[in-house]
């Protein structure tokens, strides 16, 4: 048997029981690797359940910073009896299987291509600790101690983390450190030379931070000056507003009164949540809500109102696996179409696709400027993987000179100085964006009646066809203006002569870059374009036109972004081949590599047979 050997490049998967306190132990492990300067990304794969069902924690360690899922597991820490067999079978040949040997492995566990290491976590724990509640938690810490030995980790990083974590309760630090030592010593005594995986301190992390996307969005909203949020709890979006609330309580306290410079309302449903946002934005506050797929469906009618009455709305969609209730705790990018065209009638919404927490922070802040500049809903398209997992990213930055772009809003003075008659929907500048007023601004000027029914340039109700048409066409002028304001795609031309290009967005980015680098190593330099927003800009169409074959990589079944490219930019479907992962788990570099290989091979086959082929 050849053991997997690697320094700073492997995958460890913990198999736990939900609600058993494993999360903090697993975090401790990931954070220790991060603090050793080695790039790491942990992913929770968890059930829609609070206690008792299987949950996994997959840690990707990669010196070169490829932190999307790779595929395959090199080391399994299996402490959940329910999934023991699956965890055992899923391990890669040459891998390492660590289990709680307080109970023997079943007789049919007969693989001879892996290294099995039994450590009696329960027995060690019960011998040492008397408190039954602590036992459960410390059992998890023991395996972290064992891993520290097996992976040659610097033990002091772990003990320092524990000390820091229990700064206010030093009495609790003591048994935790003891548990670490128990695991460490047991592994040292029994498996001193068994493991060929190791963590070597590095400076690859640099000044990077480890943060989840939802916290970054919530923080971005604080920095952007959002003051009103209506929301309704739904996994996996809940932690966006919770973060907004947490940071607001820290940064938005009025010194003299102790009152908050924010209004956060937990609404009765998603309809009310978006209604609150629309009411607040109409009245001149920066407002937002966060939800997931089912919430988007419920908000449909209101989104159409915001589009047609031209009200700035910031909506965060943390996508999960659909349809219907789907898999609420699994990830997907399957709301692209439902968001792009949310609501009845001809509606189109601006979408932003962040790929890491830093971009979540930036797009969150930018979304408020865009919404107010464009007077339309802006939807931030994150997903469960980005939102709820910690990701390594560059440190967040804020330019203190930055001013909020409140868009075209008339003040009392502006209204006094107006020469012509003001109309709420009068396109004075020719960019499709009109001037608005906040209620209460001026005693006699600037009042208007906002409505979702068709209206003329002065916001009066009309069913006159020509007026309606002019309004709908002006909205398309605004749509074009949007293209010049929203984030541009990130293009990497590795070989301008190569006719193969890939397009992707959001959390598909990281695994795709890893797959591309594998092809580069073999001499095939694939060009890439990362979509960052919708509507698509000229650069996207040009990129597609300058390649023979485009692979579009997405995490949904129906190739939704590809459909959007066909619909909005008349791209020929024959030109765009899909690579689709929609099993609810984050896409892997192995999956993408295999798919690209297969598609290229099939294409070569066609060429060889003289049947054309596009590459």
């Amino acid at each position, binding site marked *: 048997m050849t053991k997997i050997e690697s320094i700073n490049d492997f995958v460890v998967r913990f198999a736990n029981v939900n609600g058993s306190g494993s999360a903090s132990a697993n975090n401790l492990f990931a954070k220790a690797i991060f603090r050793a300067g080695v790039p790491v990304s942990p992913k929770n794969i968890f059930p829609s359940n609070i206690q008792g069902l299987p949950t996994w924690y997959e840690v990707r360690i990669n010196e070169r910073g490829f932190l999307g899922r790779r595929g395959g597991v090199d080391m399994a820490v299996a402490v959940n009896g329910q999934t023991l067999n699956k965890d055992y079978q899923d391990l890669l040949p040459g891998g390492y299987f660590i289990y709680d040997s307080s109970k023997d492995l079943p007789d049919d566990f007969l693989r001879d291509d892996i290294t099995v290491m039994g450590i009696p976590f329960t027995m060690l724990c019960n011998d040492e600790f008397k408190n039954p509640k602590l036992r459960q938690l410390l059992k998890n810490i023991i395996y972290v101690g064992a891993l520290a030995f097996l992976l040659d980790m610097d033990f002091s990083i772990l003990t320092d983390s524990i000390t820091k974590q229990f700064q206010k309760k030093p009495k609790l630090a003591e048994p935790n450190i003891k548990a670490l030592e128990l695991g460490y010593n047991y592994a040292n005594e029994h498996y001193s030379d068994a493991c060929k995986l190791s963590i070597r301190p590095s400076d690859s992390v640099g000044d990077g931070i480890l943060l989840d996307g939802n916290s970054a969005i919530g923080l971005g909203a604080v920095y952007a000056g959002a003051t009103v949020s209506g929301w309704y709890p739904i996994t996996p979006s809940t932690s966006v507003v919770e973060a907004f609330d947490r940071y607001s309580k820290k940064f938005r306290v009025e010194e003299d009164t102790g009152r908050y*410079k924010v209004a956060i309302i937990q609404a009765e449903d998603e309809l009310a949540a978006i*209604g609150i946002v629309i009411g607040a934005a109409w009245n001149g506050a920066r407002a937002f809500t966060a939800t997931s797929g089912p919430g988007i469906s419920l908000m449909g009618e209101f989104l159409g109102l915001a589009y047609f009455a031209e009200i700035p709305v910031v909506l965060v969609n943390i996508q999960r696996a659909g349809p219907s209730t789907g898999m609420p705790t699994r990830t997907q990018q399957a709301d692209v179409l439902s968001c792009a065209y949310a609501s009845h009638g001809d509606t189109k919404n601006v979408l932003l696709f962040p790929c890491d927490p830093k971009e979540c922070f930036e797009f969150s802040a930018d979304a408020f400027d865009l919404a107010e500049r464009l007077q339309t809903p802006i939807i931030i398209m994150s997903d469960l993987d980005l939102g709820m997992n910690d990701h390594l990213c560059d440190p967040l930055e804020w330019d203190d000179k930055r001013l909020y772009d409140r868009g075209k809003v008339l003040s009392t003075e502006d209204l006094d100085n107006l020469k012509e008659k003001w109309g709420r929907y009068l396109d004075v500048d020719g960019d499709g964006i009109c001037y608005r007023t906040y209620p209460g601004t001026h005693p006699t000027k600037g009042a208007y009646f906002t409505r979702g029914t068709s209206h003329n340039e002065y916001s009066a109700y009309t069913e006159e066809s020509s007026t309606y048409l002019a309004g709908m066409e002006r909205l398309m002028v605004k749509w074009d203006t949007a293209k010049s304001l929203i984030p541009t795609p990130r293009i990497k031309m590795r070989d301008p002569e190569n006719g193969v290009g890939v397009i992707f967005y959001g959390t598909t980015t990281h695994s795709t870059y890893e797959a591309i680098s594998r092809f580069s190593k073999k001499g095939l330099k694939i060009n890439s374009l990362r979509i960052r927003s919708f509507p698509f800009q000229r650069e996207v169409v040009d990129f597609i036109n300058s390649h023979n074959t485009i692979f579009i990589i997405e995490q949904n079944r129906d190739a939704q972004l590809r459909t959007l490219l066909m619909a909005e930019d008349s791209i020929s479907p024959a030109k765009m081949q899909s690579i689709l992962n929609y099993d609810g788990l984050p896409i892997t570099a192995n999956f993408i590599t295999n798919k690209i290989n297969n598609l290229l091979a099939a294409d070569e086959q066609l060429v060889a047979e003289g049947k054309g082929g596009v590459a």
Partner: protein
Amino acid sequence: MSFDRPKFRHPNQTKNAAGFSKQDYEGAMSTLCAGCGHDSATSGIIQACFELGIEPHRVAKISGIGCSSKTPAYFLSKSHGFNSVHGRMPSVATGANMANRDLLYIGISGDGDTASIGMGQFAHSLRRNLNLNYICMNNGCYGLTKGQDSATTDKGSSGKRGVPNPYTSIDLCELAIELGASYVARGFSGDKKQLVPLIKGAFAHSGLAFIDIISPCVTFNNTSTSTKSYEYVREHIEATNTFDFIPLQQEILAEYDEGTSQVVTMHDGSKIHLHKSDSTKSITDRLIAVNNLESEKAKGRLLTGLLYVNQEIRETHDIINSTHRPLNSLTEKDLCPGNAALQKINESLR
């Protein structure tokens, strides 16, 4: 279509203390049916605003969808208005109020808009005690879709369609009291003398003031078999009490004999003097307030007037402890923590 009202007025028309004439509170011409109860309700709102000397531009009018929800176009044309989505006036009003607590919010809804599609939002705006004047123009039918029964149509009542309603009706006032409302009243669009003080009291109230205005639909529900016709309501109306609304800073001119009146002081210092002489119904006890409604109903009577007041319940802003300043007036300086704070956050994430 909307039509502007003729601008011509008598040159010597009276002005209120704030210097506004009645005309300053009017809106576009109504496009509702001639004789619609909603137009009388609208005129009640105009009268209340005029008498209180409210600055028209400091009012925001928000409505849902339906005949009633069209009315914000017909009053206070110098105020911003928002005709939103069916049944969702309360959430839009909630957002608007959160953004700027300094304006006076008038929410207009109807019985379909409130008692059916908007029941959830109605309930939760009450629960949160949003500082909103929630006016439901209740005609017991769906007017814009031509006369279907609504959830407030009384059992057995029939409109122009001639089919008696087989379902139990919802009493919005009773429900409002049970859901924790802090000001609940019922008026009749045909009785402006009673309606105007009810609206004025609502404006002075801090928190959610709910007024159910029975407002007959002349086209679809003014039949001899309807319980929401002008005739039926006039014959069956019962009032809790008559009262005077005395705004803050206004001298009390009437003389009240001791023991004959009950005084309710509103948050802004205004007072409501309830005349006990013509009625003995208590309106500050929730249980009694519900009983009053039920016992009159049992007698086949419709209780109107101020039904319940509670000045102890905090409004939403005070519940969530938000700043006294309008949130929409805050700037970068108030809101953005700055880069130095962000670098500290970065440090905590390493």
